[in-house]
């Protein structure tokens, strides 16, 4: 199963913390016995500048448990997390070929105007994350000048 992961640009998430978040979410929803049945194992993981992806292994019979557990991961290391299950496939090679073709591009940092105020922005394609004080606002190229 391939998932794309998104957060704010300052988020610091490594393979170990993401694996831990998956196990915690599964055991909270289905108990330890359910987590053992779902057997979610993070095979590959890449994350930098607030965007990344992961390949997760799970038995076919436990796919519905895996999907709901992943959907319920909302925070890691106190950073909000957006998760999208890109697709499911039988082998890692097919997963990579089918679902990892559009990898996130690198981030560009710029000062732009948002709501008539100059703010520091992190731009990735059409997405713009605007830093205001210690918080972020998610925007697009339509919202900034």
């Amino acid at each position: 199963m391939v998932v794309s992961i998104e957060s704010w640009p300052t988020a610091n998430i490594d393979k170990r913390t993401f694996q831990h978040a998956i196990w915690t979410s599964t055991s909270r929803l289905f108990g330890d016995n359910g987590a053992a049945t779902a057997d979610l194992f993070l095979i590959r993981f890449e994350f930098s500048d607030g965007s990344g992806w992961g390949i997760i292994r799970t038995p076919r019979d436990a796919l519905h448990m895996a999907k709901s557990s992943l959907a319920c991961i909302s925070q890691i290391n106190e950073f909000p997390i957006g998760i999208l299950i890109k697709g499911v496939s039988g082998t890692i090679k097919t997963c990579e070929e089918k679902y990892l073709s559009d990898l996130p591009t690198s981030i560009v940092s710029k000062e732009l105007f948002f709501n008539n105020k100059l703010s520091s922005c992190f731009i990735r394609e059409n997405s713009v994350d605007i830093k205001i004080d210690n918080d972020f606002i998610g925007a697009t190229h339509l919202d900034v000048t």
Partner: protein
Amino acid sequence: MFEAVYATPIGTSTLSRMAATASDHGFSGIIAREQNMDSLNPDLQTISNEFEIKVFSGFEINEKNLSTLSGKINSNRNKTPLLCVRGGDAPTNLFISKQKNVDVLCHSLRNENNMSHVMAKEAAKNNVRLEVNLSDLLRGSGKNRIKSLHRLKKQWNIISAYNVPFVVSSNPTSHLELRSPRELMEVGRLIGMTPEDIETGLLEWGIILSKNIDNLSGIYANMGVKRGKYGDSN
């Protein structure tokens, strides 16, 4: 399938970012739930064209006083294609479910025992949709999530028993809180909803919008009476 979102200033993502993410997630449209008529986004068409997704703006009333609430419902009905009202305790929920002018009763499970068969029957009679709000299930934790799970199961039992119209939403306040329809279908299983039920609930937003947009466009002279020439069957 539609998702009803809280964009800035209520949420932490702008409507355009929500639209971009919702489009990636496979939604056909989004609705911005505004709590202030002045903050309605004027660039819905631009956002819609840019991210190839339908974008609408709705209004959500948050009022505890029932007599003021009644006035607000009537005064805003003809200004928006989607009128949601926040519920709360049992009397407020019952009052809202009796209002024919309300499209959706949202956030109705704030307290224990505020979902009853009496209210469900009234909602079904007046075609007020009950919102199945999956936000606590997706983003809650501990005691609150357990309670929320229990209430959602009870709500779904009543909705299915009395054939109450319903909508489904994850109430995202940021693009990071959006979850795709397929993921919501899997989460819905936890409260006894089938993937088809979740799909029905997500499609219902679009049905409400198309009906109300027709009504607001003035093509109907009265309930069920379409304007046109005599003998014109079209």
